[in-house]
């Protein structure tokens, strides 16, 4: 059979984001595939060098659009490490609430995104309806639905509004009550189950070889390798939660881990809301006019556990008002760019679209 060249290209309903997968297909089986990144390149790291420290806060969340808060957190933690700055206790808890709400929103989106390649549009509609409630809560807290610019170096921009706990609690209870219904609609659905079992397998040595982290690693290596546990930042050590792990990583286990993480995140948010002390939320990181704040020179790498894996900022400052160099280590770089050559060949053409959702790839992260 003559091999056919096919695109899961930039313009394709199966491709969430904007990268082009070139596939050599023989019949329905994919023989060779590689990713062509760069569609969303906008010179991000060059842009960060041209903005001052405080000015970068508006540019930072725009790296990955699906989950902007982890960028702000990684940048803020990096700058605070360079400054050896201690931020107030309440700011830590507010940061954790924002991060876990962001994790809930992206897990719901990824779980809903599972619906489009498998054809289950009802799941997509239900999941996006819930995600929209989270965006409304974010709008109440930070003023914008998607880009919050809320976690700044030195704490959090402003305190939580009055009565936000009521909204968050009502949303969490509602989501928890419908959690079983979500499982029946999606993962226990016989047709979806038939589609996602034993496809896009990720063996453990590929995890170490490429540096895949996050759910991909935890579901393949069967160990609780989660930065929130291994290297607890922002008071994660005072919150009890466990990390879903599994020994065999195929599309179904990864989606299952995602769903269990949703339950854990709900628990975390409840504990944070309960344990949150009173007090101020921000410590200025310099004196005088904010555009002229300087950060002592040094090299630091600060990493945060995003929903897709370890997301890190490598910040180099030469003591000036502008960062000298900021490198962004996207969590979907290894599993997106490198991984696709390893685990797509051999699967069917229909499973190629499943790769984006179960592996959790965010293409702006790859080409910054």
């Amino acid at each position: 059979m003559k091999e056919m060249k096919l695109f899961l290209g930039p313009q394709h309903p199966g491709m969430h984001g904007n990268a082009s997968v070139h596939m050599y297909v023989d019949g329905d089986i994919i023989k060779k595939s590689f990713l062509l990144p760069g569609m969303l390149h906008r010179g991000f790291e060059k842009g960060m060098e041209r903005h001052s420290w405080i000015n970068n806060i508006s540019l930072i969340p725009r790296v990955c659009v699906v989950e902007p808060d982890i960028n702000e957190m990684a940048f803020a933690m990096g700058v605070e490490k360079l400054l050896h700055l201690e931020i107030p206790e309440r700011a830590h808890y507010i940061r954790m609430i924002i991060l876990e709400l962001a994790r809930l929103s992206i897990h719901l989106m990824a779980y809903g995104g599972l619906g489009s390649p498998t054809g289950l549009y009802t799941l997509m509609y239900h999941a996006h309806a819930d995600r929209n409630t989270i965006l409304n809560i974010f709008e109440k807290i930070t003023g914008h639905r998607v880009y919050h610019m809320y976690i700044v170096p030195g704490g959090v921009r402003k305190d939580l509004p009055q009565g936000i706990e009521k909204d968050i609690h009502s949303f969490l209870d509602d989501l928890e009550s419908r959690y079983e219904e979500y499982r029946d609609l999606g993962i226990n659905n016989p047709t979806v189950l038939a589609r996602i079992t034993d496809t896009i397998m990720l063996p453990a040595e590929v995890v170490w070889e490429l540096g895949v982290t996050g759910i991909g690693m935890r579901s393949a290596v069967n160990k609780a390798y989660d930065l929130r546990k291994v290297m607890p930042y922002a008071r994660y050590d005072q919150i009890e939660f466990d990390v879903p792990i599994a020994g065999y990583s195929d599309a179904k286990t990864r989606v299952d881990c995602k769903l269990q993480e949703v339950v854990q995140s709900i628990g975390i948010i409840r504990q944070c809301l309960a344990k949150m002390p009173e007090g101020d939320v921000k410590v200025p990181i310099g004196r005088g006019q904010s555009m002229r704040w300087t950060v002592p020179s040094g090299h630091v790498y600060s990493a945060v556990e995003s929903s897709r894996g370890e997301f890190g900022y490598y910040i180099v400052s030469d003591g000036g008002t502008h960062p000298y160099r900021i490198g962004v280590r996207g969590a979907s770089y290894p599993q997106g760019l490198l991984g696709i050559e390893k685990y797509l060949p051999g699967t069917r053409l229909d499973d190629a679209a499943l790769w984006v959702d179960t592996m959790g790839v965010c293409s702006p992260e790859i080409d910054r």
Partner: protein
Amino acid sequence: MILNILFGVGVAFFGFVLQTTVAGVNRKVVARVQKRYGPKWYQEFLDIFKLLSKRATTHGWIFDFGVIMALGGIIGTAMFMPITSDLVAFENFDNFFIFVYLIAVGMLGMAMSASGSGNPLASIGVMRALTTMLAYEVPFMIVVITIIKLTGTSSVSGIAEFQQLAGNNWFMIALPLGGIVGVMSLMGMLGKKPFETYIAPAEIASGPMVEYGGKQLGMLFIMHEITVFIEVSLFVHLFLGGAENILLFIVKYFLVYTALNIISSVYGRFKIDQVVLFFYKWPLIMAVTQAFIAIYLGWVI
């Protein structure tokens, strides 16, 4: 003769209008399943007439001729369809095998024009459409042949009359296994969700209809609506005992189509090999046992 032909064209037009309104209402029903308000009930009409009002690119004369052949073939098939036992265009021409034969003409037209469009995704979609057709035809044929054996006639209105005379004892209840196989292969025929692999947008960008735009797509939408009308009314006549008057026919038609839509809105999409394996496993076994029971043992409820 002219009167019959006019009457047949009227039936085809009635089928198109009926199916488009029912599909529009169904989009609202499925929307409610998905927690939202659906579009206007006449949205399907708007879509079709918008498509007809647009200019489109053509990929050679096979591409255009195939669409015309598909639409002509399907309208030709719809002309023979009996609405109620007495409302039929050509008196004794509404034989079941005419429908099976003429639908193949429509499908062949679409397959020819889709592969004529030169897009690899379209040829994959066409290959999948024909394999799915192969898959659901076999069990459906076995059940229909048992029905023909029981009723003795192969004319669709004759079968409907047979069920009405037998005290409205529908084959759906008389041959329970046959009814289930009928529903499953109807979902395969309509391309409803579990078996929608050939229009799978997420994998092959809406399959055969990749290169269609504007007028050709409008004609294909009309063809799709009339095909659905043929298949659902065939099911109504064969399994639900036809209808004495038009109103009853419309009600039965609406109920069958809406039930299928609701079932299909909570199902994912099989891969093409899973579709064929599925159809050659359970429906085939059920059809054969039903045939054996109905014909040799004569147990008919």
